């Protein structure tokens, strides 16, 4: 049982390393960074308590929001999905990503207190 799981995982990692374009790997690294930051914030909140709650929420939501926006960018940039995003060029996707981040950061900074 565990054997098949391990073999599935290792096969997945191989496929990932070989067939994913570099651009997407860059974004994946960014995604991993965001996730770790969010997880550490959550761990801190669990350990120490929710005071001040607004700051915790703002930081955590910032991580979650950034993660979501980066995932959107990844989807839109992926050449395998070109058929679904004919009107949106990668540059346009990146511009949207930047604009959405501006709005997200505005709200986050407002709420962080």
């Amino acid at each position, binding site marked *: 049982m565990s054997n098949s799981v391990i073999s599935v995982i290792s096969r997945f990692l191989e496929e990932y390393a070989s067939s994913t374009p570099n651009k997407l790997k860059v974004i994946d690294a960014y995604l991993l960074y965001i996730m*770790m930051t969010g997880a550490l914030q959550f761990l801190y909140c669990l350990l120490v308590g929710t*005071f001040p709650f607004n700051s915790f929420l703002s930081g955590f939501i910032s991580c979650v929001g950034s993660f979501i926006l980066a995932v959107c960018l990844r989807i839109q940039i992926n050449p395998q999905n070109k058929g679904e995003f004919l009107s949106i060029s990668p540059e346009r996707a990146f511009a949207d990503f930047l604009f959405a981040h501006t709005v997200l950061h505005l709200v986050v900074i407002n709420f962080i207190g």
Partner: protein
Amino acid sequence: MYPFEGLFSLLVLSLVLETQALTPTHHLTTTDVARLQAVLSQPFTDLKSAYYSVVGLSKLGIFVADETCRFINSNLDPSSVESLFYAAEASQALSGCEIPVSNDTRDLLLATVSEDSTASQIHQSVSALSALGLPLASQEVVSALKARISKEDNVLAIILALQTASRLSQQAELGEILEEIEDLAARLDDLGGVYLQFEEGLEATALFVSAAYSLSDHVDMEPPLKEDQVIQLVNSIFSKKSWDSLSEAFSVASAAASLSNNRFHVPVIVSAQGPAAVSHSHPFLQLQVTDVLCQPLSSASVLVESASAVASKSAILNQAPFTLRDGVFELNFMASQPASGYYQFSVAITGDSRFVANHVELKVKVSTRVAINNMDLSVVDKDQSIGPKTTRVEYPTKAKASFMADSHQNFAMTFQLVDETTGVELTPHQTFVRLHNQKTGQEVVFVAEPDSKNLYKFELDTAERKTEFDSISGTYALYLMVGDATLENPILWNVADVVLKFLDEEAPGTIQAKTLYVPKPEIQHLFREPEKKPPTVVSNAFTALVLSPFLLLLILWFKLGANISNFTLSPSTILFHIGHAAMLGLMYVYWTHLNMFQTLKYLAIIGSLTFLAGNRMLAQKALIHLPLDTVVMFKHFLTINTCH
């Protein structure tokens, strides 16, 4: 607007006035009339004040000495219409005072009667002409007045026109001017249904009343004022009891004179002399019935239409007349043997069809003296094993022996309260039993209640009431207090001494006076506790930990070979990156210093620059991805377009 003289309303007494038919709430008393006379009798300094004094006093029925004639003649200025007016009117009020009149004077006065003079000038010249006995053309005056009324539409001008019209011959066409009375009456302000006055003030209202009635009397037509309106005017004019100026006093005197003596409406003032109360010692209810100048009405006959008890609504009197004695109307109410209490009287004043407000409602109090009968005191054993010992005490003596009651006994008291003269049982409002401990100063008060047969009973259960007494044994003096508004002799009677014995262990050691006004304990305010924060070490450690994945990111990117080799140094790229960095910097500044509005303002500026630069940059980047021939065609297309 008019100061309410509370002092004189007290003098006016407790008349309860019905709202169905309006009766005057304010009127002049004899003191007020005397004060009015005093104001008008002040020594005068010039012709105008002489006019006000002389004519005002003549309206009140007082005639001034003849030296005034010399004063008038010496101060007269024959070239001024106003001066002639004052002199002529004043001399007419004096007996045997003649003003020399020359042809020039007459011509001057006649010339003033025209459409070009003001209403006031016309009034003065016409009054002077008629006072001096000179002929005048009434029709010309009427047409001049009509023209002036339409030009000067203010209240005072119309009032003067009314006054002027009352001096003209009765054959002149005064109909249109007469209609002005109704128009002016419509302009009066109704305040709370009690007052009716012009916004121009007391003087205007008073002058209106005297002008309206003098014109109505002159043409013998009833003025279009309803009874209620007349009473409201009376309230307005006579509510002010001290007058600011001579002209104001004059106007009040004119109004009072015209209201007390005209052919149509004479308001009647009814006031009780002294309090409206009767008793066996004062059996007569006395009423003063006067006109507004406090002069008794000679032709009046006063009748009680109905008198009924307020409590039981049973009628006592019906159509009983008052008899006139020494200018006061009186009625022997005690002859009808009313029980004590309050009675509602409905009084009608008849005798003259001109009387206004001649139905008055009065509340009359009948007082009596109370007597205490059959005061029996006893000490009853609770288990009824020993029969009660009853002692009778006669008012106002005190029981010789004191009564002893401890926790096994009750102390009881019964008595009857009756009317001294008739023997009818009474239930006054206040029947209290007071026990006073002379040594400690304690006082406990109980209420004695009557039973169905109007026999008063008071029982003191020593054991039950020990909290009121604080369980302090001792000698208590017992007082009976009886009082009521309709009793002439309230009673405070020390009936007996009562020795109360409570269980000794319950008595407090020292008697403490009730402390109501000592400082209370201070309240300490508890400020909100700040929330518990983790130690700084922990939070610092975690800050470092949270920032650490960034290092991991850089390492991963380096390993993946992410680079900035495609970085073109075009202006839009540089501008874009600077703008983007500026936006991030703005976020930090927002966190530390700014508020949302300022941030949005800066963000708009920086954002739009960044957007434009970024758009350019990304468009250039996008072109690189397109196949070469498409790029050439695109550029060709652009150049074609820009040539035109």
